[in-house]
């Protein structure tokens, strides 16, 4: 039985639901952002209304995502909710949206994380309107990348994220925000330029003059050219991932961005890099990617180990968390590069798990930093006495980040390791060493922040408020749910991964 035969063919007909659902997920946030522009912002009540509106918009998107995911489950690997409209026909571009299991899972993550991020944004007192407008535009950008099946569209949505992200960091961030924002913009534009270059090369060299991913998949390119495109797009995505040595923007942005934006940055924006590698490099340029896989594996392992080692000396709590996320993304890269079904399944699950746990950690870190009035770990200590809820959540979040059984990351790591091991018998144990170090640094952080005798100035801090607790418990329950029942997500992901791999290289 060949691989293709093993993939169950779709038994149901195409989904009868209006195909506007996907467009809704992409454009509702943008429309809401435009709508927000007309809100007055003079009084506190006005600001509260703006926040409620933003919460409503993100909840609507989340609802759409859940409905779509529910309707999606009986599909098997093919693109669903496809929507094709003519758009720039002269250039060969079209408005082509569609999701498979992989992007559906990530869209669901996006819906949840943006919802929690908007909920967690209650502390933004000044320029509330600008803040939510930018956040919602960012959501359009993120969802658009997951949904597009057209390279031009993909690129435009990709580009759409940089400006809101830049402004969010530059205007709402910490003390050194401008520096971090410019660094983000410069690196991101450089990465995007490479992506654009790759797309244009593909566009001009392919036999058919089109930007459509599905059509271009069947195009045959000279080997050297395909390898070049694979390299270019890999570097563009890897900068976002981030991999060593292009990661300093991420650590800075992570430390300076306001907490909800940091949630989105660590939970979604870097995941787009992983998604890009899986979708474009593994999915579309499989054979070419196979040629560069040795280098990619080395990069992945170096990223895992480097960030794990670098995390130890960090005194700034949020920089430390940045390295932890980066280390996981290295593991995701390892899984994607292994290019076997188990490992890619694991990589997708790991991205989702890490998105959730990173968001939870960012949330708790922001709360802790606010209480302690410093982001220096050395200045904290013994906070468990006053912050028992926070401690409990932090321990569980740290365990989730450490890939603990019963929590989402465990199955992801297990699949990556089981899948990557046969092909890469040295790289996989080395990556496990990185996992151990990340777990060590997280456990040590618990010890330094929460345990031990309480410092004098920390003896009167408040515990988490109701809203913070609700956010935390919401994220945590998703983590536990995925850890105990990974099958609810993995079935459709698995079919898509199999379909993707069995279609072969373009």
């Amino acid at each position, binding site marked *: 039985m*060949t*691989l293709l*035969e*093993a993939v169950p063919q779709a038994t149901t007909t195409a989904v009868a639901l209006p195909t506007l659902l996907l467009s809704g997920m992409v454009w509702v946030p943008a429309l809401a*952002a435009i709508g*927000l*522009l007309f809100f007055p912002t003079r009084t506190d009540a006005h600001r509260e209304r703006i926040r409620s509106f933003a919460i409503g918009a993100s909840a609507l998107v989340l609802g759409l995502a859940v409905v779509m995911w529910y309707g999606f489950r009986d599909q098997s690997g093919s693109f669903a909710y496809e929507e094709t409209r003519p758009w*720039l026909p*002269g*250039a060969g571009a079209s408005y082509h949206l569609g999701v498979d299991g992989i992007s559906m899972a990530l869209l669901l993550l996006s819906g949840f994380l943006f919802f929690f991020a908007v909920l967690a944004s209650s502390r933004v007192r000044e320029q509330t309107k*600008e803040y939510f407008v*930018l956040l919602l535009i960012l959501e359009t950008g993120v969802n658009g990348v997951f949904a597009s099946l057209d390279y031009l569209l993909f690129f*435009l949505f990709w*580009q*759409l994220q940089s*400006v*809101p992200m830049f*402004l969010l960091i*530059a*205007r709402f961030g910490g003390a050194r925000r*401008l*520096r971090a924002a*410019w*660094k983000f913009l*410069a*690196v991101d534009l450089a990465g995007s330029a490479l992506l654009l270059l790759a797309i244009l090369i593909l566009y001009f060299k392919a036999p058919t*003059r089109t930007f459509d991913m599905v059509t271009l998949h069947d195009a045959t390119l000279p080997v050297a050219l395909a390898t070049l495109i694979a390299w270019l797009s890999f570097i563009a995505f890897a900068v976002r991932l981030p991999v060593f*040595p292009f990661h*300093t923007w991420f*650590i800075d942005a992570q430390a300076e961005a306001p907490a909800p934006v940091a949630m989105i940055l660590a939970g979604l924006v870097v995941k787009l890099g992983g998604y890009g590698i899986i979708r474009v490099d593994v999915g579309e340029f499989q054979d070419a990617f196979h040629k560069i896989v040795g280098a990619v594996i080395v990069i992945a392992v170096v990223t895992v180990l480097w960030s794990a*080692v*670098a995390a*130890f*000396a960090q005194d700034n709590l949020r920089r430390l968390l940045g390295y932890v996320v980066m280390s996981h993304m290295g593991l995701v890269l390892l899984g994607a590069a292994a290019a*076997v*079904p*188990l490992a890619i*399944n694991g990589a997708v699950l790991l991205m989702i798990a890490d998105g959730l746990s990173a968001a939870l950690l960012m949330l708790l870190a922001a709360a802790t930093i606010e209480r302690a009035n410093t982001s220096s770990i050395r200045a904290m200590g013994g906070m*468990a006495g006053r912050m028992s809820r926070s401690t409990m959540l932090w321990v569980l979040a740290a365990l989730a980040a450490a890939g603990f*059984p*019963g929590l989402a990351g*465990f199955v992801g*790591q*297990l699949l990556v*390791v*089981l899948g990557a*091991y046969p092909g890469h018998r040295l790289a*996989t*144990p080395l990556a496990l*060493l990185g996992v*151990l*170090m990340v777990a*060590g640094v997280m*456990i040590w952080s618990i010890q330094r922040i929460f*345990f*031990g005798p*309480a410092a004098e100035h920390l003896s009167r801090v408040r515990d988490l408020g109701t809203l913070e607790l609700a956010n935390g418990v919401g994220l945590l329950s998703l983590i536990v749910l995925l850890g105990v029942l*990974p*099958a609810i997500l993995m079935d459709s992901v698995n079919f898509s991964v*199999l379909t993707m791999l069995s279609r072969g290289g373009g």
Partner: protein
Amino acid sequence: MILTLLAAAPKGPLDTWSPTLLALFALLLPLIALLIILAFTVDSRRLSAAISVIFTLAAVVCALLVVAIEIAHPIHLERNATFLQLLTGQTGSASEFLLQWGVLADPLAAVMLIAVTLTSLLVQVYALAFIRREDGPVRFFSVLLFATFAMTGVTLSTSYFEMLLFFGLVTLSTYLMVGYWWQREEAAAAAARAFVLSLAGDLALLAGIAYIFFRFGELNFQTLATQYTGGKVSANGLFIMSILVFLGAAAKSAQFPLHAWLPGSAQAPAPAAALLHSAGAALCGVYLLARAYALFHASPRALALLAIAGGLTAVLGVLWALFQENLKRAIAYTTMSELGLMVLALGIGAYGASIFEVFAHAWPKALLFLAAGVIIRELRTERLAEMGGLWRRMPLTGWVMLIAVAAGAGIPPFSTFWSKDAMLSKALALRSPIAIILITAVTFLGAMALVRIFRLAFTGETARRRRFEPERIRDAGGRIATAMVILAIPCTAAGIRGIRGRTDPIAFVTFPGVTVSNSHFVAAGIIAAAAVLGAGIAWVIYARPRPVVALEPVRRAMAEGLFVERAYHFGAAGLLMPASRAAGWIEQRVDATVDLVADSVAFAGQPRRWLPDVRPRQLVIGLLAGMVVLATVTMMLAGRVIGKVG
């Protein structure tokens, strides 16, 4: 006896009760209790404690029924459910990737199950009175329930995957128990160390699982048991698998040099330490080795590895125990030597004897820690040098401690005498002089170490300290006394032969291909002589401890456990931190170039002045304009090409 009869009844109700179902109950009851407590009764100490004890009691009943059924019909039963099922097609042909979890019932699991649940129950009864209000009893019972659940899960695991999953939970429960008094710097550090070392073992096990899955495409213990010898994997491959699995077990069961967390685990509250050392985290490594014994049995080198590592651990542990100044650390090191003996027994093929040792050792060790908890609470010190003369003031604690010491030391007819006798019988049958000498020496020294503790704490005069009045010491009573007295019963009776001929009471735990060696009178004589002699010598030596100046460096080195813990600390602090700082330095250099680019972009635009003044409307217009420009450029480019083509 009664239970045996019950199970043997031909048409009794027990026949319809599947042992796996009962095992599943035993597994889920602590978890359900934990969830009830967390969800509903967090605020009520009494209710939480009551729920905890009642559910654990129910789990004990289930465990007893499983034991009864397994004694009557020693069979292996499994009940599995799908955890995750994926299609894979790595080599062209489609295959299915299946992760299962479930419960099993077999003699080995039954023995462990009763040890875990019963110790947990007694420890909880003890904790009812021991954990005071300000220590957070609800948190303590939650942690105990979680530990019980995790350990029961390990006991009932059907596959390597499930074992790994529950190993992780055991790691967490150890962390929570050791770090229970988190305000203490040492406790927090010991907890972190326990977590990291345990996790290192778990990851080694994960690597082993990846290798096993890669070779066999299967993770179920029972299915794999017959495949190791099938020639699918070379001898070297089997040896590597064994090493990786052994590393996972060694980190949990404190085999040298991965034992560094065990002495620190004495930081846990006394009842938690009792569970940890008797049938909890420290035992699950040995249990994994027993469960995966087919793998080791298929590779002679792996058995040799077990024997060597176990022997080394046993000797070092007992030597270090002799030099400890801290009561709980001294007991902890004796656990290490017993764990070494169990692994050694597995290595020389004494499978039944090793499991017997697990079973026989659990009770005295739990009792020792519980008694130590009473002593420490009354004396408000953990230092042996500050104790003494407690025999008159705490007669009940003294008696149970004496029984525990005798049982742990292997003095006939107490529990571990019989298991050590079984081990030595096997060694004698093998005619292996090293094994014989090791077991005898460890018995001798172990008896010395335990009697030393008793001698220092209970005889002589109570040392006087500032703000401490020996007259106010009171003996244990109530629930604490009940738990200890109940535990003293299995300490006395757990090993006694004669239930069925001359074989062990747990002789129904067998491994195919390994013969159960009957007791050897020579072996019994040697063990009895070694234990009694060791006890007598310790009684004389430690009557009035005088520091011998010449031995001072030796004493310090031994008390520090040959500085292994410090070596780990140095490895972490001395290597990782400089490496981490170096990484940070390199990153700054990398960063500088990126900054240069960013600064030049910023300089070119000079936008910092207007940035804070942009209004959202302008922003959106700008964004849309940008998109339009980008689209136009693309279209123009595209149009040029289309023009060329057309």
